[in-house]
């Protein structure tokens, strides 16, 4: 048992934190958000130069063959800096589908342009009525010749208006909520019948509602088994959940640090407000919440490589529950302890709160995951 990072992992941590410390402060982030895409090409290029975009891909595919711990390191650093560029959508999720489900040809067609930063991806999954159920898919993929015709509407697709390629879940057979019959397809953003309507999200990122109207794709668009793609979706989304939890740990860490700094400088009644025990104890409880989230995120990160899909899913669901509880407490209290200034758009603490809040409702909130684990008899049933 060893909680230390390896030499390479420490180097990675130093370099990604160094990159973001130097070139990604709160003012820079505002500029990136104001850019045409809603994120910065320049920052993206730097991520590519540092090798961050190629991290999880196999060496044979041109990547570095890094694992879940490396993704945890990167996402935590991105959480600290509140990065708005589409790393999760492109590298973790889009890349995850290609790594776990892509054929040789699909990997060769897409991975090099992810690694060099020239292309980004988006995951078109959420539907009007699906909420957190990944198997609830109404979008249809009808067989036509050797290919498919995709029709349906997807919502809150992160990076949806700027992605070059969509990874789309669509049903090839069965009823709307059947486990079998979910397919996963690669669809070019410029394919005929694809329409993306973009908008900003509450946390400073951007998303789109994407309509697929009779979009024709070839047989080579299907990732994995088009009639049984749900296990692939679950695997990739589990990795995305853990990446989000790591991002949340970074954002919580920075929220707490910022809040404590404020307690040490803000004067009222002739002293730093951090001298008041009521506020000290609140800070201590935030620290406990942060460490509980950090501890279980390590557990979830290790679970990414479990062979047994059910054990993996349970461990990651447990992680999302704990992180959800912690982020709510830390997010809310960080605003409370800042008082009025925490309410202002100008000050950074509120932006952490907003990002944390959106993470909670991405790919299942604490209640959803708690219910999932409870439904199978709890975490320690064996």
């Amino acid at each position, binding site marked *: 048992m060893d909680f*230390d990072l390896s030499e390479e992992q420490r180097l990675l941590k130093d370099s990604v934190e160094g990159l973001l410390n130097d070139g990604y402060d709160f003012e820079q982030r505002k500029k990136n958000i104001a850019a045409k895409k809603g994120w910065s090409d320049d920052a993206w290029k730097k991520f590519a130069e540092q090798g961050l975009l190629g991290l999880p891909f196999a060496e044979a595919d041109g990547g570095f063959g890094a694992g879940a711990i490396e993704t945890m390191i990167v996402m935590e650093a991105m959480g600290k800096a509140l990065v708005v560029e589409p790393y999760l959508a492109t590298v973790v999720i889009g890349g995850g589908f290609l790594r776990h489900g892509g054929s040789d040809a699909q990997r060769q067609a897409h991975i090099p342009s992810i690694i060099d930063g020239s292309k980004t991806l988006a995951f078109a999954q959420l539907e009007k009525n699906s909420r957190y159920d990944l198997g609830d898919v109404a979008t249809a993929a009808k067989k036509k010749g050797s290919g498919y015709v995709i029709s349906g509407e997807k919502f809150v697709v992160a990076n949806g208006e700027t992605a070059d390629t969509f990874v789309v879940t669509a049903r090839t057979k069965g009823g709307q909520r059947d486990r079998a019959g979910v397919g996963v397809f690669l669809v070019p953003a410029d394919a005929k019948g694809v329409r993306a309507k973009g908008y900003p999200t509450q946390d400073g990122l951007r998303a789109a509602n994407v309509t697929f109207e009779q979009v024709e794709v070839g047989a080579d668009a299907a990732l994995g088994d088009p009639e049984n793609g749900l296990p692939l979706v679950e695997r990739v989304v589990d990795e995305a959940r853990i990446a989000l939890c790591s991002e949340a740990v970074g954002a919580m860490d920075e929220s707490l640090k910022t809040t404590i700094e404020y307690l040490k400088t803000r004067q009222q009644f002739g002293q730093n407000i951090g001298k008041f025990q009521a506020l000290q104890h609140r*800070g201590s409880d935030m620290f*406990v919440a942060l460490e*509980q989230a950090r501890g279980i995120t390590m*557990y979830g990160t290790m679970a990414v490589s479990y062979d047994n899909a059910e054990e993996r899913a349970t461990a990651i669901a447990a992680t999302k529950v*704990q992180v959800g509880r912690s982020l709510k407490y830390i997010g809310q209290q960080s605003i409370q302890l800042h008082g009025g200034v925490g309410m202002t758009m100008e000050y950074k603490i509120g932006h952490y709160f907003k990002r944390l809040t959106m993470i909670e409702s991405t790919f299942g909130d604490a209640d959803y995951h708690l219910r999932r684990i409870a439904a199978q008899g709890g975490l320690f049933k064996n």
Partner: protein
Amino acid sequence: MDLSYSKEEVAFRQEVRDFFKTAVPAETRKKLQEGRHLSKEDMVTWQRILNKKGWAVPHWPKEWGGTGWDAVKLYIFNEELQLAPAPQPLAFGVNMLGPVLFNVANEEQKKYYLPRIANLDDWWCQGFSEPGAGSDLASLKTKAERKGDVYVVNGQKTWTTLAQHADWIFCLVRTDPNAKNRQSGISFLLVDMKSRGITVRPIITIDGGHEVNEVFFDNVEVPVANLVGEENKGWDYGKFLLGNERTGIARIGASKERLRRIRQLAAQVQSGGKPIIEDQRFLEKLTAVEIELKALEMNQMRVVAGEKHREKGKPDPASSILKIKGSELQQATTELMMDVIGPFAAPANTGESDGSNELDDWTTMIAPGYFNYRKVSIYGGSNEIQRNIIAKAVLGL
């Protein structure tokens, strides 16, 4: 980073588990599972079984009977002990006094006391808290005046756990009332409970149990040879001792064991025509506790694995998390137990288990267990004190 146990550690766990399986006396195991109090004899018998095996004081230096296990193995040993369940060796001797002795006592004291602690020949209790000195321990008033070869001790200690069984008590006493601050002028004394002038009075707690006592000192004469370390340096030794108390206080293994019993009981108790273990609301509450416990277990392991990077004897400030969350979760498990037993928590057990009382069923221990466990967020530095520690030592407030 590798969060799995090595092959050697897995084998070690199995070895410990196998030993506990046969070595714990059946009656003792049953009492622990049912949440009953152990007798002095139960504790002594168990400690001698461990001592014979060479596992009485695994965390001590080898020359005094330690095993040389690293922090991970010590953690595994302790977790298996709690899971078995087996009695936790009496902390006052092996965890609290022992390390003070082998760090600051003289050779003669070490040679005499340490082996007797390991074998539980001497039952030790702790004389720190006083009626006016709880969280604010430095305000203690019990005084020891040097008169020739003895200290004459006068005063009162309280919350003295299991003093009714004790042969000895280690005390913080004030030896210099004129010291420049309250922390100076305190000494660490070993006092024979058979000394003339000691009176032990039981305190019955809300669960009806007799764990704690008041101990009165009326002109008790203590040989000067029973002073540990230097006179007036006792505060430092006491602080060191309390730091040791915090590690292992999370009792994660014990909470896991109680969760196992909760599941067993919940499979038997009916609610709405089905076992309560199938009730969605109950399962969600149970799962929520399990998830927090899992997170805490990871943090416990982080503290344990990080031990190799820390200066010896300096506890990780993060261990305050273990105290806060560990105690809250121990309490949460006793609360879940109450949820399961529902209205049948009410009947109280009037006598010791003599088999004559039809209510003399282990479920009568559930409510007392719930009442009793309110103590865990109070002792060992209350959870509010732990928050002060985090605010100061970690957050720098």
